[in-house]
């Protein structure tokens, strides 16, 4: 009888364990949000995270935005040239960047740069008992360490996405117009005529949600790093992989809702 019930029991235990983990994950997020709204407020901690997540990522975002814009300019020109529609290049580049590639690639790059650092730093603090030290000093570690990062992520992701989009559009211009010879006037005219506020807003909605999701996942993984030799590396890897997967899955979901 035991042999028959064993796999069912195992499945049940796994399901309960996974559900409990999801519950902890959600409670952590709610706690962090509530802590952000509860005094004492520490704006200097948010400013510090804005620098680490936002300001320090600008160069990378600009570089990737420029490179993406150049590729879009090149591919877009060659594709549109087949149909004699080179004049639509600006519209194509801007729509693809603003609606899709801007928020998604920015989120992936910030995950790789700031998200991994976030998970590693919190993991290191957990492993070396620095998080416990905060608790002992009667300082709520979630309020002190996690909430400022989530707030900073929420603010900086849309701003970095905007930088990515703008530089990408100029990258597309440099290649499409400067190198390939697409009509210069129609490039920016196409953008101003065809890019609607809804397109821009949908890109920003995505960036806002990615900002919350990436900082939530990276903080959760780092904060719950296991106290063992591989604890920090494991937490960092899981944070980056899970954040990236979530960004791509959420992107599809949000696109289908915001279209």
């Amino acid at each position, binding site marked *: 009888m035991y042999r028959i019930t064993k796999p069912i029991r195992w499945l049940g235990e796994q399901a309960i364990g996974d559900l409990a983990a999801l519950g902890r994950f959600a409670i952590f997020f709610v706690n962090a949000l509530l802590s952000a709204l509860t005094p004492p407020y520490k704006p200097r901690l948010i400013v510090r995270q804005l620098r680490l997540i936002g300001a320090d990522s600008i160069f990378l975002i600009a570089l990737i935005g420029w490179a993406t814009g150049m590729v879009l300019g090149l591919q877009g020109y060659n594709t549109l040239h087949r149909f004699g529609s080179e004049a639509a290049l600006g519209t194509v580049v801007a729509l693809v960047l603003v609606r899709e590639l801007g928020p998604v690639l920015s989120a992936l790059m910030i995950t790789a740069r700031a998200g991994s650092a976030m998970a590693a730093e919190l993991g*290191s603090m957990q492993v*070396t008992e*620095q998080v416990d*030290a905060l608790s002992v000093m*009667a300082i*709520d570690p979630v309020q002190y360490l996690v909430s400022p990062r989530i707030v900073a992520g929420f603010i900086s992701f849309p701003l970095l996405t905007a930088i990515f989009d703008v530089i990408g559009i100029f990258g597309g211009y440099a290649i499409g117009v400067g190198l390939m010879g697409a009509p210069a006037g129609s490039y920016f005219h196409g953008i101003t005529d065809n890019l609607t506020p809804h397109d821009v807003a949908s890109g920003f909605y995505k960036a806002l949600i990615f900002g919350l999701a990436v900082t939530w996942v990276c903080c959760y993984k780092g904060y719950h790093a296991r106290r063992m030799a591989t604890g920090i590396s494991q937490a960092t890897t899981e944070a980056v992989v899970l954040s990236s997967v979530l960004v791509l899955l959420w992107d599809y979901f949000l696109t289908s809702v915001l279209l």
Partner: protein
Amino acid sequence: MMTAPQDGGSTIAIDVRDLTRRFGPQTVLDRVSFACPRGKITTIVGPSGCGKTVLLKHLNFLLRPDSGRIVIDGEDVTDAGWSELNHVRGKFGMLFQAGALFDSITVAENVAFPLVEKTRLSRQEIAQRVAEKLAAVGLEGAGNKFPSQISGGMQKRAALARALIHDPKILLLDEPTTGLDPTRVGAIHHLIRGTQQRLGLSAVLVSHDVPQVFEISDRVAFLHKGRMRLYGTVQEITSSPDHMFRSFLAGEEIDEEEAEARSSALAR
């Protein structure tokens, strides 16, 4: 086997009663009872994995017990909420095993941290108190260094200065001499004793530096497999015939069956 004393009233700083804690199927602390007298050092010793650090983490509420009571200064705080806990934690200073200094800020900023975050003292007052505490632990010139730039012993002293910065009544010390060379162990022990006596603190010290740590202890608790096997004054404990304790003291592997049989025979 000696039992935990039942002395109550204001002479007791921390009173632990029947504390039990399980992690999954494993019982890590099993009905542990002991009382730490005010103004004295109580040292918890025992083999690795016996539950010493887990017990200490219950005293400052980093962990909560499954059952049992914890009374601090006559106040039962076992089920205290966050705000009550904040008040109680203000009475504690804690020195962690690895120091737990924040590695992104300097030693002086580490020591100042509790005051910066929890009080409205002016920068000047904070700087003055930090300088006093750093001087008290012999780190006058190390304030501007980062934790990674100073030795392990200095890190422990800096952590002690941070634990003392808000003038706590109770000091909790988790293996303060782990990883230090033997010459440093004595220096840290004397620093702890001197500080405790000068400030009249109650202290709970977890250590495996036996018998050296007995020199600075007033009470000793011997924990084995989550149970409080012995508790008493240093003299009572060191003269105990308990074979498990004697094996531990001699650094021998504890043969439980043999030790139990010998202890039972002696008790008869």
